């Protein structure tokens, strides 16, 4: 490697350093709006030659100056980023790239697992793979009959609407897989959301509740930063739903996907529309069902969160099952002094601490259900 080549870690709190990276990326039509966990720049004889960063498992914002292509600088960047990720305990990696550049990452051991034609390819490497996840999940549900229906839900938190949807799917299918979105960018932590769904679904013999994993509605399947604004909605859904229809559904014998109508969140509505367009031609039937109502109002996790913040237990009784209400009461008891928990006093841009990051992450509020 060139002796004049330096690799510097970017101080993400420094405005001048992040601005330099943002300006560099802008030349490649890439944004740098969402703060990564870690970023580096490569300098050749003091001049910026390339940059790369990561957020969680996802390598991002990778760019190398056009006149320096073919020198293996991408490899240098990727190696440095993966080393730091591993040091932080991350041993599985994703990268998005333009389909034309996918071969560069194949040479670095990455395998393509999904693609939106002409827009984006998603590749992975490291310990664990899509194939392995499919095998392990299939094994975990091997006791269930097929064909199966799938529900992908955030359940933030579990409401009577979720319960009604699970009940309907349970009635109409041999077996049902409820995939609870794993990523912790929601108001309620994954462990709690998951437990509430598991408890709620216990009464349905043919229903199994599973974590959605990294391949369904994750930072990887929803690349918010990678694509140009106008391409985003389409490519995002295409990646996530393409992966679901082509890889996950066949592996888990899923022939139907259920979703609740989405009157509130425009992103989720778009996702539902994309589901109707993308899944059926690939052999997965889509069932979108109207929301359950409580009086005049539909039941939505959004309303549950609002009522919880106001400690409006009367309203909650119409929206959420008993176990969710017990859970919310225990939270309220632990924290009686903060009736509006969304006013976090921590810095707002660290992963997991904002209360409802969905608008920021560009992911659907609750794909599939209330």
């Amino acid at each position, binding site marked *: 490697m060139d002796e004049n080549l330096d690799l510097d870690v970017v101080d993400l709190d420094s405005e001048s350093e992040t601005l330099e990276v943002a300006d560099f990326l802008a030349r490649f039509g890439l944004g740098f709006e969402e703060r990564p966990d870690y970023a580096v720049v490569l300098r050749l004889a003091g001049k910026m030659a390339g940059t790369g960063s990561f957020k969680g498992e996802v390598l991002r914002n990778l760019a190398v100056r056009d006149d320096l292509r073919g020198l293996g600088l991408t490899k240098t960047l990727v190696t440095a980023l993966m080393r730091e990720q591993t040091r932080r305990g991350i*041993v599985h990696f994703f990268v998005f790239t333009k389909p034309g550049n996918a071969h560069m990452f194949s040479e670095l051991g990455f395998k393509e697992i999904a693609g939106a034609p002409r827009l984006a390819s998603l590749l992975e490497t*490291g310990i664990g793979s899509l194939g392995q996840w499919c095998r392990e999940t299939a094994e975990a549900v091997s006791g269930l009959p097929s064909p199966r229906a799938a529900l992908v839900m955030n359940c933030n938190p579990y409401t009577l609407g979720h319960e009604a949807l699970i009940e309907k799917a349970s009635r109409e299918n041999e077996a049902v897989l409820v995939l609870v979105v794993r990523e912790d960018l929601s108001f309620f932590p994954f462990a709690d959301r998951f437990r509430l769904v598991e408890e709620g679904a216990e009464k349905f013999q043919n229903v199994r509740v599973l974590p959605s994993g990294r391949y369904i509605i994750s930072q990887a399947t929803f690349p918010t930063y990678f694509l140009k604004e106008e391409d985003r909605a389409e490519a995002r859904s295409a990646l996530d739903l393409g992966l679901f229809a082509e890889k996950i559904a066949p592996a888990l014998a899923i022939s139907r996907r259920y979703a609740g109508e989405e009157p509130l969140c425009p992103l989720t509505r778009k996702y539902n529309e994309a589901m109707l367009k993308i899944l059926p031609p690939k052999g997965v039937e889509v069932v979108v069902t109207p929301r359950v109502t409580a009086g005049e109002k539909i039941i939505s996790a959004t309303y549950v969160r609002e009522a919880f913040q106001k400690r409006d237990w009367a309203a909650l009784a119409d929206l959420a099952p008993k176990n969710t209400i017990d859970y919310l009461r225990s939270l309220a008891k632990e924290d009686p002094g903060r009736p509006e928990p969304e006013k976090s006093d921590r810095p707002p841009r660290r992963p997991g601490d904002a209360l409802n990051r969905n608008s920021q992450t560009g992911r659907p509020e609750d794909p599939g259900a209330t």
Partner: protein
Amino acid sequence: MKTVLRAAQAGTMESNDLMVIVEPGSGGISIDLESIVSRQYGAAIRATIARVAAEMGLTDLNVKAVDKGALDYAVEARTRTALGRALAPETDGGRGK
């Protein structure tokens, strides 16, 4: 019996080198290898990695290796380094270089 304490990595993806990533496993030594010469040398590379792990007294381990044509002693050295890092007590609170 020794246990790997954390994930660790060694090596690069430059030609004639190998990048090894290890993490604590659950039941046995699992090796996932990508190699440009896997047809000819895949079994030999796996055997070297498994031998080094055994020599270091490890039984539960996940390994990912991306090989760019490393010679056997390079495979051994990279594996040893990665495992050494994975076994080393934390000295910098996980934040230093």
